Protein backbone atom coordinates (compact mmCIF):
# COMPACT_ATOMS: atom_id res chain seq x y z
CA UNK A 1 0.00 0.00 0.00
CA UNK A 2 1.01 3.59 -0.52
CA UNK A 3 -0.30 6.95 0.42
CA UNK A 4 -3.20 8.10 -1.75
CA UNK A 5 -2.36 10.70 -4.40
CA UNK A 6 -5.30 12.92 -3.51
CA UNK A 7 -5.83 13.81 -7.14
CA UNK A 8 -9.38 14.11 -8.41
CA UNK A 9 -10.41 13.11 -11.90
CA UNK A 10 -11.76 15.53 -14.46
CA UNK A 11 -15.50 15.22 -15.10
CA UNK A 12 -16.07 13.30 -18.35
CA UNK A 13 -17.17 15.32 -21.36
CA UNK A 14 -20.42 14.73 -23.21
CA UNK A 15 -21.38 16.08 -26.60
CA UNK A 16 -22.72 19.64 -26.70
CA UNK A 17 -25.54 18.23 -28.83
CA UNK A 18 -27.73 19.96 -31.40
CA UNK A 19 -29.18 22.46 -28.95
CA UNK A 20 -25.94 23.95 -27.59
CA UNK A 21 -27.05 27.28 -29.01
CA UNK A 22 -29.92 27.43 -26.51
CA UNK A 23 -27.48 27.34 -23.63
CA UNK A 24 -24.59 29.37 -25.01
CA UNK A 25 -26.07 31.79 -27.55
CA UNK A 26 -29.80 31.69 -26.80
CA UNK A 27 -30.72 34.83 -28.72
CA UNK A 28 -29.10 33.34 -31.84
CA UNK A 29 -31.17 30.19 -31.18
CA UNK A 30 -34.40 32.18 -30.94
CA UNK A 31 -34.73 31.98 -27.16
CA UNK A 32 -35.01 35.70 -26.64
CA UNK A 33 -35.42 37.77 -23.54
CA UNK A 34 -33.63 35.65 -20.97
CA UNK A 35 -30.35 37.58 -21.24
CA UNK A 36 -29.86 41.13 -22.58
CA UNK A 37 -27.50 39.75 -25.24
CA UNK A 38 -25.53 36.62 -26.03
CA UNK A 39 -22.17 36.14 -24.38
CA UNK A 40 -19.01 36.74 -26.40
CA UNK A 41 -20.54 38.58 -29.35
CA UNK A 42 -17.20 40.22 -30.12
CA UNK A 43 -13.63 39.82 -28.83
CA UNK A 44 -12.93 43.51 -29.40
CA UNK A 45 -14.69 46.81 -28.89
CA UNK A 46 -14.32 50.03 -30.85
CA UNK A 47 -10.85 51.49 -30.60
CA UNK A 48 -8.98 48.23 -30.15
CA UNK A 49 -5.34 48.64 -31.16
CA UNK A 50 -3.95 46.75 -34.11
CA UNK A 51 -5.21 45.43 -37.42
CA UNK A 52 -8.88 44.49 -37.47
CA UNK A 53 -9.28 41.29 -39.42
CA UNK A 54 -12.10 39.02 -40.50
CA UNK A 55 -11.67 35.26 -40.59
CA UNK A 56 -14.22 33.19 -42.46
CA UNK A 57 -14.48 29.44 -42.78
CA UNK A 58 -16.50 26.30 -42.42
CA UNK A 59 -16.26 23.12 -40.40
CA UNK A 60 -16.39 20.09 -42.70
CA UNK A 61 -17.23 16.53 -41.70
CA UNK A 62 -15.60 13.41 -43.14
CA UNK A 63 -17.85 13.50 -46.19
CA UNK A 64 -16.97 17.11 -47.02
CA UNK A 65 -20.29 18.50 -45.79
CA UNK A 66 -20.12 21.78 -43.89
CA UNK A 67 -21.63 21.49 -40.42
CA UNK A 68 -24.63 23.76 -39.96
CA UNK A 69 -24.77 23.27 -36.21
CA UNK A 70 -21.18 23.79 -35.01
CA UNK A 71 -20.46 26.32 -32.29
CA UNK A 72 -17.03 27.75 -31.75
CA UNK A 73 -15.19 29.82 -29.18
CA UNK A 74 -11.99 31.74 -29.71
CA UNK A 75 -9.49 33.12 -27.20
CA UNK A 76 -6.54 35.35 -27.98
CA UNK A 77 -4.28 38.13 -26.76
CA UNK A 78 -4.28 41.71 -28.04
CA UNK A 79 -2.15 43.08 -30.87
CA UNK A 80 0.84 43.28 -28.53
CA UNK A 81 0.47 39.65 -27.42
CA UNK A 82 -0.97 40.54 -24.00
CA UNK A 83 -3.97 38.76 -22.50
CA UNK A 84 -6.67 40.59 -20.56
CA UNK A 85 -5.44 41.10 -17.02
CA UNK A 86 -1.78 41.36 -17.97
CA UNK A 87 -0.09 44.70 -17.36
CA UNK A 88 -0.54 46.99 -20.34
CA UNK A 89 -3.13 44.81 -22.07
CA UNK A 90 -5.48 46.66 -24.41
CA UNK A 91 -8.71 47.28 -22.45
CA UNK A 92 -10.63 47.15 -25.73
CA UNK A 93 -9.73 43.49 -26.26
CA UNK A 94 -11.76 40.97 -24.26
CA UNK A 95 -10.11 38.22 -26.29
CA UNK A 96 -13.10 35.90 -26.15
CA UNK A 97 -15.65 35.28 -28.88
CA UNK A 98 -18.47 32.83 -29.45
CA UNK A 99 -19.76 32.25 -32.93
CA UNK A 100 -21.70 29.63 -34.81
CA UNK A 101 -21.84 28.15 -38.27
CA UNK A 102 -24.60 29.71 -40.33
CA UNK A 103 -27.63 27.43 -40.23
CA UNK A 104 -28.05 27.58 -44.01
CA UNK A 105 -24.51 27.82 -45.41
CA UNK A 106 -22.35 26.48 -42.59
CA UNK A 107 -20.05 29.50 -42.87
CA UNK A 108 -18.69 31.19 -39.76
CA UNK A 109 -17.20 34.66 -39.33
CA UNK A 110 -14.80 35.90 -36.67
CA UNK A 111 -14.00 39.61 -36.62
CA UNK A 112 -11.17 40.50 -34.29
CA UNK A 113 -7.73 42.09 -34.10
CA UNK A 114 -4.72 40.18 -35.27
CA UNK A 115 -2.97 38.93 -32.12
CA UNK A 116 0.69 39.60 -31.33
CA UNK A 117 3.29 36.94 -30.61
CA UNK A 118 3.20 35.32 -27.17
CA UNK A 119 6.21 34.19 -25.11
CA UNK A 120 6.86 30.59 -24.18
CA UNK A 121 7.41 29.68 -20.54
CA UNK A 122 11.13 29.17 -20.90
CA UNK A 123 11.93 31.78 -23.51
CA UNK A 124 11.28 32.30 -27.17
CA UNK A 125 8.17 33.53 -28.91
CA UNK A 126 5.26 31.73 -30.46
CA UNK A 127 4.00 33.02 -33.78
CA UNK A 128 0.72 34.95 -33.52
CA UNK A 129 -2.21 32.60 -33.04
CA UNK A 130 -5.80 32.36 -31.87
CA UNK A 131 -7.06 29.38 -29.85
CA UNK A 132 -10.21 27.81 -31.25
CA UNK A 133 -12.57 25.35 -29.55
CA UNK A 134 -15.23 23.54 -31.58
CA UNK A 135 -18.29 21.76 -30.24
CA UNK A 136 -21.29 20.21 -31.99
CA UNK A 137 -23.61 17.25 -32.08
CA UNK A 138 -21.46 14.18 -32.79
CA UNK A 139 -18.34 15.72 -31.24
CA UNK A 140 -18.00 13.91 -27.92
CA UNK A 141 -15.29 16.13 -26.47
CA UNK A 142 -14.63 19.66 -27.67
CA UNK A 143 -11.90 19.93 -30.30
CA UNK A 144 -9.06 22.39 -29.78
CA UNK A 145 -6.98 23.87 -32.54
CA UNK A 146 -5.16 27.11 -33.40
CA UNK A 147 -5.41 29.70 -36.12
CA UNK A 148 -2.04 30.98 -37.37
CA UNK A 149 -1.61 33.46 -40.22
CA UNK A 150 -0.09 32.99 -43.65
CA UNK A 151 1.45 36.47 -43.67
CA UNK A 152 3.32 36.07 -40.38
CA UNK A 153 6.69 34.44 -39.79
CA UNK A 154 5.69 31.01 -38.55
CA UNK A 155 9.07 29.39 -39.12
CA UNK A 156 10.14 29.35 -35.48
CA UNK A 157 6.87 28.37 -33.90
CA UNK A 158 7.27 25.59 -31.39
CA UNK A 159 3.89 23.98 -32.03
CA UNK A 160 3.96 24.10 -35.82
CA UNK A 161 7.44 22.63 -35.79
CA UNK A 162 6.25 19.70 -33.71
CA UNK A 163 3.92 18.50 -36.48
CA UNK A 164 5.83 15.62 -38.03
CA UNK A 165 4.04 15.63 -41.38
CA UNK A 166 4.91 19.17 -42.46
CA UNK A 167 2.02 19.59 -44.90
CA UNK A 168 -0.38 19.03 -42.00
CA UNK A 169 0.93 22.22 -40.36
CA UNK A 170 -0.79 24.10 -43.16
CA UNK A 171 -4.16 23.05 -41.71
CA UNK A 172 -3.51 25.54 -38.88
CA UNK A 173 -2.63 28.49 -41.10
CA UNK A 174 -5.30 30.93 -42.23
CA UNK A 175 -5.00 31.93 -45.89
CA UNK A 176 -5.05 35.59 -46.74
CA UNK A 177 -7.88 36.30 -49.17
CA UNK A 178 -7.83 40.09 -49.16
CA UNK A 179 -6.82 43.10 -47.14
CA UNK A 180 -7.58 42.14 -43.54
CA UNK A 181 -9.43 39.04 -44.68
CA UNK A 182 -8.54 35.40 -44.07
CA UNK A 183 -9.96 31.96 -44.76
CA UNK A 184 -9.67 29.17 -42.18
CA UNK A 185 -11.48 25.91 -42.89
CA UNK A 186 -11.62 23.07 -40.42
CA UNK A 187 -11.78 19.47 -41.55
CA UNK A 188 -12.85 17.12 -38.80
CA UNK A 189 -11.85 13.92 -40.56
CA UNK A 190 -10.22 12.48 -43.64
CA UNK A 191 -8.18 14.21 -46.34
CA UNK A 192 -6.72 17.45 -45.08
CA UNK A 193 -7.83 16.68 -41.52
CA UNK A 194 -7.08 19.61 -39.24
CA UNK A 195 -4.46 19.09 -36.55
CA UNK A 196 -6.29 19.02 -33.23
CA UNK A 197 -4.51 19.70 -29.99
CA UNK A 198 -4.21 18.10 -26.57
CA UNK A 199 -2.58 20.80 -24.48
Amino acid sequence: MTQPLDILTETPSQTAGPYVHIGCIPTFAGVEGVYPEDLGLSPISDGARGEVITIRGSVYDGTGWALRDAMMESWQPDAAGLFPGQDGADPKVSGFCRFAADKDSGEFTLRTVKPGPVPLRHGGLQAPHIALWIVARGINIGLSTRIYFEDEDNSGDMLLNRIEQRPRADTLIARKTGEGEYRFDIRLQGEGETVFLDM
Partner: protein
Amino acid sequence: MSETAPLMPRRREVHPVPYDPDYKTSVVRSPKQALLSLESTLIEETGPVFGHDLLGPLDNNLIYNFTQGAAPAVGERIRVHGRVLDETGRAVPNTLVEVWQANAGGRYRHVKDTYFAPLDPNFGGCGRTITDENGYYEFMTIRPGAYPWPNRANDWRPMHIHFSIFGSGFGQRLISQMYFQGDPLIDLCPIVNTIKDRGQIDRLVAPLDMQNSRGMDYIAYKFDIVLRGRRQTMFENKPEGM
Protein backbone atom coordinates in the same frame (compact mmCIF):
# COMPACT_ATOMS: atom_id res chain seq x y z
CA MET B 1 -6.15 36.17 -16.28
CA SER B 2 -5.51 34.78 -12.83
CA GLU B 3 -2.85 32.09 -12.99
CA THR B 4 -0.42 30.77 -15.52
CA ALA B 5 0.71 27.47 -14.01
CA PRO B 6 0.78 24.57 -16.50
CA LEU B 7 -2.39 22.52 -16.82
CA MET B 8 -2.32 18.87 -15.87
CA PRO B 9 -2.54 16.72 -19.00
CA ARG B 10 -6.07 15.69 -19.84
CA ARG B 11 -6.72 12.02 -19.02
CA ARG B 12 -8.40 11.06 -22.24
CA GLU B 13 -9.38 7.61 -20.95
CA VAL B 14 -12.03 9.10 -18.66
CA HIS B 15 -13.69 10.87 -21.58
CA PRO B 16 -15.91 9.49 -24.34
CA VAL B 17 -14.35 7.90 -27.39
CA PRO B 18 -14.60 10.32 -30.32
CA TYR B 19 -15.77 7.63 -32.76
CA ASP B 20 -18.69 5.46 -31.73
CA PRO B 21 -20.87 3.86 -34.43
CA ASP B 22 -23.78 3.57 -31.98
CA TYR B 23 -23.84 7.38 -31.87
CA LYS B 24 -24.19 7.77 -35.60
CA THR B 25 -23.34 11.45 -35.97
CA SER B 26 -19.93 10.83 -34.43
CA VAL B 27 -18.96 8.59 -37.35
CA VAL B 28 -18.11 11.46 -39.72
CA ARG B 29 -17.36 14.08 -37.06
CA SER B 30 -14.54 12.30 -35.22
CA PRO B 31 -10.91 12.98 -36.10
CA LYS B 32 -9.00 9.91 -37.27
CA GLN B 33 -5.52 11.34 -36.68
CA ALA B 34 -3.92 11.41 -33.25
CA LEU B 35 -4.16 14.64 -31.29
CA LEU B 36 -0.95 16.65 -30.94
CA SER B 37 -0.08 16.54 -27.23
CA LEU B 38 2.07 19.33 -25.81
CA GLU B 39 2.50 21.07 -22.49
CA SER B 40 0.07 23.94 -22.12
CA THR B 41 1.19 27.46 -23.00
CA LEU B 42 -0.12 30.87 -22.05
CA ILE B 43 -3.13 30.73 -24.36
CA GLU B 44 -4.40 27.51 -22.73
CA GLU B 45 -3.51 28.69 -19.23
CA THR B 46 -5.36 31.99 -19.44
CA GLY B 47 -9.01 32.45 -20.18
CA PRO B 48 -11.92 34.87 -20.16
CA VAL B 49 -13.12 36.16 -16.80
CA PHE B 50 -16.78 36.94 -16.27
CA GLY B 51 -17.90 39.11 -13.39
CA HIS B 52 -20.95 38.60 -11.21
CA ASP B 53 -22.31 41.81 -12.73
CA LEU B 54 -22.97 39.78 -15.88
CA LEU B 55 -25.83 38.04 -14.14
CA GLY B 56 -29.45 39.09 -13.93
CA PRO B 57 -31.45 38.15 -10.83
CA LEU B 58 -33.31 35.33 -12.60
CA ASP B 59 -30.45 33.96 -14.68
CA ASN B 60 -30.15 30.89 -12.45
CA ASN B 61 -33.89 30.32 -12.17
CA LEU B 62 -35.14 28.49 -15.25
CA ILE B 63 -38.62 28.24 -13.76
CA TYR B 64 -39.06 31.97 -14.14
CA ASN B 65 -36.32 33.46 -16.32
CA PHE B 66 -38.08 33.05 -19.68
CA THR B 67 -41.06 35.11 -18.52
CA GLN B 68 -38.87 37.38 -16.39
CA GLY B 69 -40.85 36.34 -13.34
CA ALA B 70 -44.34 36.66 -14.78
CA ALA B 71 -45.32 32.97 -14.77
CA PRO B 72 -43.69 29.68 -13.79
CA ALA B 73 -42.76 26.80 -16.07
CA VAL B 74 -44.65 23.52 -15.84
CA GLY B 75 -42.87 20.60 -14.21
CA GLU B 76 -41.41 19.08 -11.11
CA ARG B 77 -39.54 21.86 -9.34
CA ILE B 78 -35.93 20.96 -8.67
CA ARG B 79 -32.84 22.64 -7.29
CA VAL B 80 -29.49 21.59 -8.75
CA HIS B 81 -26.43 22.51 -6.77
CA GLY B 82 -22.81 21.54 -6.27
CA ARG B 83 -19.24 22.69 -6.43
CA VAL B 84 -16.75 23.20 -9.20
CA LEU B 85 -13.35 21.86 -8.19
CA ASP B 86 -10.13 21.16 -10.04
CA GLU B 87 -8.11 17.96 -9.99
CA THR B 88 -6.06 19.20 -7.05
CA GLY B 89 -9.27 19.44 -5.03
CA ARG B 90 -9.24 23.22 -4.93
CA ALA B 91 -12.46 25.11 -5.44
CA VAL B 92 -12.80 26.97 -8.76
CA PRO B 93 -14.31 30.32 -7.69
CA ASN B 94 -15.98 32.94 -9.87
CA THR B 95 -16.35 30.72 -12.90
CA LEU B 96 -19.26 30.80 -15.31
CA VAL B 97 -21.60 27.78 -15.33
CA GLU B 98 -24.20 27.66 -18.11
CA VAL B 99 -27.00 25.10 -18.42
CA TRP B 100 -29.62 24.19 -21.01
CA GLN B 101 -32.29 21.55 -21.12
CA ALA B 102 -35.59 20.32 -22.54
CA ASN B 103 -38.87 21.23 -20.88
CA ALA B 104 -40.86 18.88 -18.65
CA GLY B 105 -42.29 17.13 -21.72
CA GLY B 106 -38.89 16.54 -23.30
CA ARG B 107 -39.09 19.32 -25.89
CA TYR B 108 -36.47 21.98 -26.63
CA ARG B 109 -37.36 25.49 -27.66
CA HIS B 110 -35.46 25.08 -30.92
CA VAL B 111 -36.40 25.15 -34.58
CA LYS B 112 -34.77 21.76 -35.12
CA ASP B 113 -36.69 19.96 -32.38
CA THR B 114 -39.75 18.43 -34.03
CA TYR B 115 -40.82 16.06 -31.24
CA PHE B 116 -44.57 16.42 -30.74
CA ALA B 117 -44.39 17.03 -27.02
CA PRO B 118 -45.67 20.60 -26.62
CA LEU B 119 -43.61 23.69 -25.93
CA ASP B 120 -44.20 25.29 -22.54
CA PRO B 121 -44.95 28.98 -23.16
CA ASN B 122 -43.26 29.78 -19.85
CA PHE B 123 -40.04 27.83 -20.35
CA GLY B 124 -36.99 28.92 -22.37
CA GLY B 125 -34.50 26.27 -21.30
CA CYS B 126 -31.29 28.14 -20.53
CA GLY B 127 -29.71 29.49 -17.38
CA ARG B 128 -26.38 30.58 -15.99
CA THR B 129 -24.62 31.37 -12.77
CA ILE B 130 -21.11 32.06 -11.47
CA THR B 131 -19.53 30.02 -8.69
CA ASP B 132 -18.94 31.78 -5.38
CA GLU B 133 -15.58 32.03 -3.65
CA ASN B 134 -15.92 28.40 -2.53
CA GLY B 135 -16.71 27.11 -6.00
CA TYR B 136 -20.38 26.63 -5.11
CA TYR B 137 -23.22 27.10 -7.57
CA GLU B 138 -26.95 26.42 -7.62
CA PHE B 139 -29.95 26.94 -9.82
CA MET B 140 -33.66 26.27 -9.83
CA THR B 141 -35.35 24.54 -12.72
CA ILE B 142 -37.89 21.89 -13.61
CA ARG B 143 -36.99 18.27 -14.19
CA PRO B 144 -36.47 17.85 -17.94
CA GLY B 145 -38.38 15.11 -19.72
CA ALA B 146 -36.81 12.19 -21.56
CA TYR B 147 -37.31 12.27 -25.30
CA PRO B 148 -36.78 10.21 -28.46
CA TRP B 149 -34.14 11.24 -30.97
CA PRO B 150 -33.21 10.22 -34.49
CA ASN B 151 -30.31 7.79 -34.19
CA ARG B 152 -31.14 4.10 -34.18
CA ALA B 153 -34.82 3.29 -34.67
CA ASN B 154 -35.85 3.64 -31.03
CA ASP B 155 -33.33 5.69 -29.08
CA TRP B 156 -34.33 7.87 -26.14
CA ARG B 157 -32.31 10.39 -24.23
CA PRO B 158 -32.49 10.00 -20.46
CA MET B 159 -33.49 13.07 -18.50
CA HIS B 160 -30.49 15.37 -18.58
CA ILE B 161 -29.21 18.90 -18.14
CA HIS B 162 -26.36 20.19 -20.31
CA PHE B 163 -23.53 21.98 -18.47
CA SER B 164 -20.89 24.33 -19.86
CA ILE B 165 -18.05 25.33 -17.51
CA PHE B 166 -15.10 27.67 -18.11
CA GLY B 167 -12.54 27.40 -15.31
CA SER B 168 -9.66 29.86 -15.16
CA GLY B 169 -7.87 28.75 -18.33
CA PHE B 170 -9.21 28.16 -21.83
CA GLY B 171 -7.68 24.67 -21.75
CA GLN B 172 -10.04 23.74 -18.90
CA ARG B 173 -13.10 24.39 -21.02
CA LEU B 174 -15.65 21.60 -20.60
CA ILE B 175 -19.16 20.72 -21.74
CA SER B 176 -20.92 17.74 -20.21
CA GLN B 177 -24.35 16.48 -19.17
CA MET B 178 -25.91 15.72 -15.80
CA TYR B 179 -28.20 12.71 -15.47
CA PHE B 180 -30.63 11.83 -12.69
CA GLN B 181 -30.28 9.00 -10.20
CA GLY B 182 -32.46 6.02 -11.01
CA ASP B 183 -33.30 6.87 -14.63
CA PRO B 184 -33.54 3.52 -16.48
CA LEU B 185 -32.77 5.19 -19.82
CA ILE B 186 -29.19 6.06 -18.78
CA ASP B 187 -27.92 2.55 -19.47
CA LEU B 188 -29.57 2.44 -22.89
CA CYS B 189 -28.36 5.78 -24.22
CA PRO B 190 -25.73 5.69 -27.00
CA ILE B 191 -24.50 9.17 -26.05
CA VAL B 192 -23.99 8.17 -22.41
CA ASN B 193 -22.27 5.01 -23.61
CA THR B 194 -19.67 6.88 -25.63
CA ILE B 195 -17.99 6.83 -22.20
CA LYS B 196 -16.58 3.32 -21.99
CA ASP B 197 -15.75 3.26 -18.28
CA ARG B 198 -18.90 2.58 -16.26
CA GLY B 199 -17.38 4.24 -13.23
CA GLN B 200 -16.97 7.46 -15.18
CA ILE B 201 -20.59 7.36 -16.31
CA ASP B 202 -21.65 7.16 -12.68
CA ARG B 203 -19.85 10.45 -12.08
CA LEU B 204 -22.38 12.17 -14.34
CA VAL B 205 -25.38 10.85 -12.40
CA ALA B 206 -26.59 13.34 -9.78
CA PRO B 207 -27.89 11.79 -6.56
CA LEU B 208 -31.17 12.80 -5.03
CA ASP B 209 -30.33 15.12 -2.14
CA MET B 210 -33.21 15.11 0.32
CA GLN B 211 -31.25 17.00 2.97
CA ASN B 212 -31.09 19.99 0.64
CA SER B 213 -34.67 19.65 -0.60
CA ARG B 214 -37.46 21.83 0.78
CA GLY B 215 -40.80 20.34 1.72
CA MET B 216 -43.78 21.52 -0.36
CA ASP B 217 -41.36 23.41 -2.62
CA TYR B 218 -38.51 21.66 -4.47
CA ILE B 219 -36.47 18.49 -4.55
CA ALA B 220 -32.67 18.77 -4.77
CA TYR B 221 -29.97 17.06 -6.78
CA LYS B 222 -26.25 17.46 -6.15
CA PHE B 223 -23.82 17.68 -9.05
CA ASP B 224 -20.13 18.36 -8.48
CA ILE B 225 -17.87 19.11 -11.43
CA VAL B 226 -14.11 18.62 -11.66
CA LEU B 227 -11.99 20.59 -14.13
CA ARG B 228 -8.38 20.01 -15.12
CA GLY B 229 -5.92 21.02 -12.41
CA ARG B 230 -2.70 22.97 -12.53
CA ARG B 231 0.69 21.60 -11.66
CA GLN B 232 2.22 23.50 -8.76
CA THR B 233 5.95 23.45 -8.23
CA MET B 234 8.58 25.90 -7.15
CA PHE B 235 10.78 24.59 -9.94
CA GLU B 236 8.85 26.33 -12.70
CA ASN B 237 5.98 28.74 -13.17
CA LYS B 238 8.30 31.60 -13.92
CA PRO B 239 7.13 32.75 -17.32
CA GLU B 240 10.02 34.57 -18.90
CA GLY B 241 9.72 37.75 -20.85
CA MET B 242 6.59 38.81 -18.97
